[in-house]
């Protein structure tokens, strides 16, 4: 089989900041350059897209010299951190935005599912919206009529099909929207992060459908997700985008290993990913200043064997007065992101003042989790879990990787899954007042 998508040196330049009156001056400069037969003067000044460092130029390359090929019938994954350029790439592939330079060649009809429910009109019924959404995605009336029953069946919202979708729950909304898209039968299906909503059962159904679409019908699926487990289960080939550049390209297993290397480089500091409201959330009253997973000797590690001893050590700083301090650490399931086990410790019952810093270490003596990869969740909050006092770090560090240990007692597959408790103890909890230290 040949290639279905060929991405050839794609780059995309974005202008940062306001589009305002300065653009008129730039438009004129551009026009003059074109009349004189010169290159667009603003193409030269682009910088790589590094979100957290301040650049000198107003222009950044959201994508720079991206090259890859997708075979027909392949399930192809795209991963990368927020702002790595994934969505921009998909926008170019689905013809929503044009590239600045380079070209993309496609074979067959492309349907994208950039965000589900696109074009759903809240006032219209589910039935009308199936037709409207189908038409937006490029189906004809006849096609939709023929598939209507199986669309409704797949979505599982049959009872509500004649109710305006504004009365739907967000899950029902997504189900219906995905059902329409799944019945599109394009040669190339582009799916972006749809699985963020919907329950575990429906997510499984979607992944299964995407698998079927490519396996049985020979269609090409392009899948973008932050959910590494889903990528691993679904995709044969994967690329990583990092700061707008292609970081790795190859077999999924191998690429995922490189991706974990990439996240391992993240050291959590007070300002890490602070404007990213997905993986880091918080109002800034208290902040993590460091998070490390170590073994009992204090070596930083993310790979452990079942039954090994793990230490979670954190440092933090208080920036605004809060009532007490609680630390929560959770191990999540890779696929559904449900909480598997949770550790909670009150680090202080007293009022915490700005300038206070602290350090805490929690030890889990026996790691009783099946081999696999588990995203981690860290939270600092006050005694009453007020949301204004929170600092949350959600799947921002590298995931915890657990391999089969010599001690096989803990990797029994017959154990019930779901939430469980694990033994842990706090072995260090210190809070020092930097204000007073300076006074003394």
């Amino acid at each position, binding site marked *: 089989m*040949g*290639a279905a998508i*060929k991405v050839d040196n794609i780059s995309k330049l*974005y*202008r940062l900041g306001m*589009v305002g009156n300065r*653009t*008129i001056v730039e438009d004129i400069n551009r026009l003059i350059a074109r009349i004189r037969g010169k290159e667009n003067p603003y193409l030269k000044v682009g910088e790589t897209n590094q979100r957290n460092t301040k650049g000198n130029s107003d222009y950044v390359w959201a994508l720079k010299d991206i090259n890859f*090929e997708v075979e027909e019938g392949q399930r192809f994954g795209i991963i990368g951190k927020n702002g790595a350029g994934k969505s921009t790439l998909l*926008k*170019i*592939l*689905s*013809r*929503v*935005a*044009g*590239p*600045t*330079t*380079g*070209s*993309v*060649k*496609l*074979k*067959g*009809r*492309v349907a*994208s599912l*950039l*965000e589900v429910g*696109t*074009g759903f*009109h809240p*006032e*219209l019924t589910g039935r*009308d919206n199936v*037709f*409207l959404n189908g*038409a*937006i*995605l*490029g*189906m*004809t*009336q006849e096609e939709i009529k023929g598939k209507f029953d199986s669309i409704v069946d797949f979505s599982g919202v049959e009872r509500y099909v004649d109710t*305006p979708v504004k009365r739907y729950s967000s899950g029902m909304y997504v189900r219906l929207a995905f059902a329409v898209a799944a019945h599109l039968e394009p040669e190339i299906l582009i799916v972006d992060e749809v699985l963020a909503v919907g329950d575990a059962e429906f997510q499984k159904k979607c992944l299964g459908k995407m698998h079927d679409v490519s396996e049985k019908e020979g269609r090409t699926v392009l899948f973008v997700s932050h959910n590494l487990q889903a990528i691993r289960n679904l995709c044969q080939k994967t690329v990583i985008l990092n700061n707008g550049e292609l970081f790795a390209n190859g077999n999924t297993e191998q690429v995922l290993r490189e991706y974990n290397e990439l996240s391992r480089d993240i050291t959590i500091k007070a300002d890490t990913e602070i404007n990213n409201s997905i993986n880091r959330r918080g109002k800034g009253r208290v902040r993590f200043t460091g998070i490390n997973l170590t073994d009992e000797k204090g070596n930083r590690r993310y790979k452990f064997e079942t039954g090994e001893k793990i230490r979670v050590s954190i440092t933090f700083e208080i920036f605004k007065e809060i009532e007490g301090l609680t630390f929560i650490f959770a191990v999540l399931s890779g696929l559904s992101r449900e909480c598997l086990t949770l550790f909670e410790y009150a680090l202080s019952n007293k009022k915490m003042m700005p300038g206070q810093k602290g350090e805490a270490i929690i030890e889990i003596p026996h790691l009783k989790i099946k081999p696999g990869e588990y995203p981690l969740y860290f939270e600092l909050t006050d005694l009453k879990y007020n949301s204004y006092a929170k600092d949350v770090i959600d799947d921002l560090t590298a995931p915890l990787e657990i391999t089969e240990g010599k001690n096989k007692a803990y990797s029994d597959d017959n154990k019930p899954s779901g939430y469980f408790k694990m033994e842990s103890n706090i072995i260090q909890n210190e809070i020092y007042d930097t204000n007073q230290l300076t006074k003394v």
Partner: protein
Amino acid sequence: MSKTSQDEWTLEIKPVSGWFHFHLKDVWRYRDLLMMFVRRDFVAVYKQTILGPFWFFLQPILTTITFTVVFGNIARISTDGIPPLLFYMSGIVSWGYFSDCLTRTSSTFITNANIFGKVYFPRLVSPLSNIISLLMKFGIQLFLFTCFLLYYWMNGSTNVHPNIYILLTPYLLILMAGLGLGFGIIVSSLTTKYRDFSFLVGFGVQLLMYATPVIYPLSALPEKYKWIVLANPMTAIIDTFRYAFLGAGTFNPGNLIYSSVFMIVTLSIGILMFNRVEKTFMDTV
């Protein structure tokens, strides 16, 4: 590295280049979507209103009454001997279609930014669906106007003479739709970068109405200013409409041809600009 030969690719995405790269064939392929949009507009507009499509009637009636009182009874502007109610209503109904087309299509990119940002379909489908769904409103209002006309005619109003030129109505509609769409998409193309134009549309249309014989007949104009009003492509259309239904005013084929040419030029420029902008607007809007 390429295992497939060049000609097998069905689509090539390239940076924006050239002005004359149309997707008119695509528009035809998406005709089902066009009809869905029309249906959506129609169904959605009056959902959760008590009076529903009745608003289509109410709006021109109230405006006509206002105009009759203000311009007819207070300002005493001539209506060429036609009953003021019919005179103003004929102007309001026909002008209304043009101005609705213009204002609706002029915000295409801004109101649809959300959906345009996610899925590809020929963007021209959106404004086209607008002018079609507005046609239905026009139809209802035209029906209302005809009712009034019949009432006056039956009651022996000697000044009203509907005539054979009524058959020109579809052509007049095409002219109005073309002009409204043309101006509308020009403005919408400009608004993606410079929002200033969207402010201009609102009162621009208002001002243009006063440069069109909507509230006064052409004959009431002093010779000195007549050329300004005649330069307005809408003048011939409104005037012909009124001549066909009421038998007053003038029918000048030359003026109508002028309007037709004007429409074709405006629409062509509009489509050119729209085509150009639809590929880049995501980055600026």
